[in-house]
């Protein structure tokens, strides 16, 4: 049989032996006779079964759950049975209510337990979700960094291309006149060799062939050619310092050298009407990545030249350097078109550019800042619209 509140309660469950004895003896006193209380199956639970007695059912719901047996008049037995039934009814109400209460409490507890388990489960789910999100964010950040790196490389390639174009122009010019000088010099040699057939004419032949001029001009041609070749050699040397941009090793470097290199490279590419002046004071050597600094300085000089060209009037770029106890100060000043407040605010943002699409990725200043930060330095912009811009760089010298 189950333990639920709504089971069929047996008489023996509703009244225990002590309660039966109390009720039975009290009823016995009232009736003044022997009596017996039997269960539904007619087993005597209390008392002694009198012979030839009356019996009345004890009914709570539909069927008798016991019998009261006594040898007394019917009315008296009815009264006694009604009294006992009332006691049983009270008992059954109490038993059902208390059992139901226990059952409900355990149900409530079970509900709480399930609720708790569900909460734990959902917490675990959220945790897993958060981890997953974190992973995805990381992956996307990595992807963005990769893209940015690719763009940075592209920008570098573009500036290398620009550099190559400038170099080609620079080299072509001396190459042209050196070649022309050499072919003129070859003709002069032919003229000189004609002297051999006219040796008999004596000094008159020298004059007739105008060899005074030929010799003097040959000197000029060769001097000019040597200068031209020196120029090419200088350009190549300056180029060399850019050829190892990605060399990651740090070196003791004179920043003035870097400035001269960059100025040398940009010099041949300056638009007409733009002058470049260097005002360099002696600097202590700095441990740095010269390739990166060179590229940065070249970019800044190019910006300055462009700013003057944009202003549509002649101008000067002044590059100055000086050192104090803390470190090295570099200033690149131009008297070009200047920058608006909005441009100043956004100048260091990656991909911010005022140039037409395709002429720059807008990474020049942002990568300049990255390079300066990598050297634990600072970079600042000061500008007045239509009056010019100054880029100030500070690089600390390790003590």
């Amino acid at each position, binding site marked *: 049989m189950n333990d639920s*509140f*709504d089971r069929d309660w047996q008489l023996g469950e509703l009244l225990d032996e002590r309660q039966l004895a109390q009720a039975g003896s009290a009823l016995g006193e009232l009736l003044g006779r022997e009596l017996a209380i039997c269960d539904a199956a007619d087993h005597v639970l209390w008392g002694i079964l009198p012979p030839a007695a009356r019996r009345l059912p004890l*009914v709570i*719901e*539909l*069927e008798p759950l016991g019998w009261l047996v006594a040898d007394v008049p019917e009315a008296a037995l009815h009264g006694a049975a009604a009294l006992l039934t009332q006691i049983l009814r009270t008992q059954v109400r109490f038993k*059902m209510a208390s059992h139901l*209460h226990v*059952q409900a409490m355990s*149900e409530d507890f079970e509900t709480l337990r399930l609720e708790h388990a569900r909460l734990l489960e959902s917490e675990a789910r959220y945790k897993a979700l958060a981890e997953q999100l974190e992973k995805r964010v990381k992956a996307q950040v990595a992807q963005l960094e990769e893209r940015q790196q690719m763009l940075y490389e592209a920008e570098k390639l573009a500036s290398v291309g620009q550099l190559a174009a400038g170099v080609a122009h620079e080299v072509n010019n001396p190459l042209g006149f050196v070649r022309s000088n050499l072919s003129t010099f070859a003709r002069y040699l032919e003229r000189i060799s004609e002297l051999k057939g006219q040796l008999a004419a004596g000094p008159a032949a020298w004059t007739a062939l105008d060899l005074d001029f030929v010799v003097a001009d040959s000197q000029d041609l060769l001097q000019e050619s040597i200068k031209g070749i020196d120029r090419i050699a200088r350009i190549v040397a300056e180029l060399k310092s850019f050829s190892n941009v990605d060399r990651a090793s740090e070196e003791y470097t004179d920043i003035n050298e870097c400035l001269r290199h960059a100025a040398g490279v940009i010099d041949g590419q300056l638009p007409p009407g733009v002058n470049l002046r260097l005002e360099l004071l002696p600097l202590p050597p700095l441990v740095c990545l010269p390739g990166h600094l060179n590229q940065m300085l070249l970019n800044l000089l190019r910006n300055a030249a462009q700013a003057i060209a944009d202003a549509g009037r002649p101008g000067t770029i002044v590059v100055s350097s000086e050192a104090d106890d803390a470190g090295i100060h570099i200033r690149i000043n131009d008297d070009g078109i200047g920058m608006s407040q909005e441009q100043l605010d956004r100048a260091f943002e990656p991909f911010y550019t005022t140039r037409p699409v395709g002429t720059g990725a807008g990474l020049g200043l942002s990568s300049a800042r990255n390079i300066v930060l990598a050297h634990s330095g600072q970079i600042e912009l000061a500008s007045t619209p239509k009056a010019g811009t100054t880029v100030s760089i500070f690089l600390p010298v390790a003590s």
Partner: protein
Amino acid sequence: MPDGDASTLTFKLVYYGPAQSGKTTNLLRLHEQLAPELKGEMMTLETQGDRTLFFDLLPLGFRAPSGLLIKFRLFTVPGQVAHDGTRKAVLSRADGIVFVADSQRSQETNNAEAFKTLADNCSRVGLDFQAMPLVVQFNKQDLPAAVPPEEIRGRFSAAPWPLTFASALHGNGVVATFELLLRATFRRYAADSELSSRHALDEESFVRGALGPAAAS
């Protein structure tokens, strides 16, 4: 499954519904109006200001031609939200359910929530809600704010359960609701409990036995 042995078969029928929808009143009126062969006293457990705290119990019964005693124990659950544990305990092992809804328009949300707890609690106590004999009674039809039957029928036309309309306070529709539940219960368990084959009971005699001759349904 109805509980029983060789000599008796007990059906536990539960009146479920939101607070104060008239579940106890349904049982009181059935006690007055039904006259089956066996009818016990209505047992009302503790109440608090007229609100059921535990349950009410009305026992009814009749004897099948085979001698089998068919017993019905009609229970009400406490409707108040706070007594959900008690509601579940009373609901467990139910063989049939009357859902007593309050027809007043303002009670629609309460009805819906109580019905949802009925479905939830059925699955929690291991009852197959889909297969459960269930009648939905819209009580308090006598009140002026009651939603009329046509509108309710229209709205619940897709529901698989029979709908009845009652005003239990005046005794209307209470027996009809119980009769519908008896029929649904008979159809659900007749084969499993061999009511026709072994005990010579058909649906009509089952219903007549439970209602008694005097009941005007």
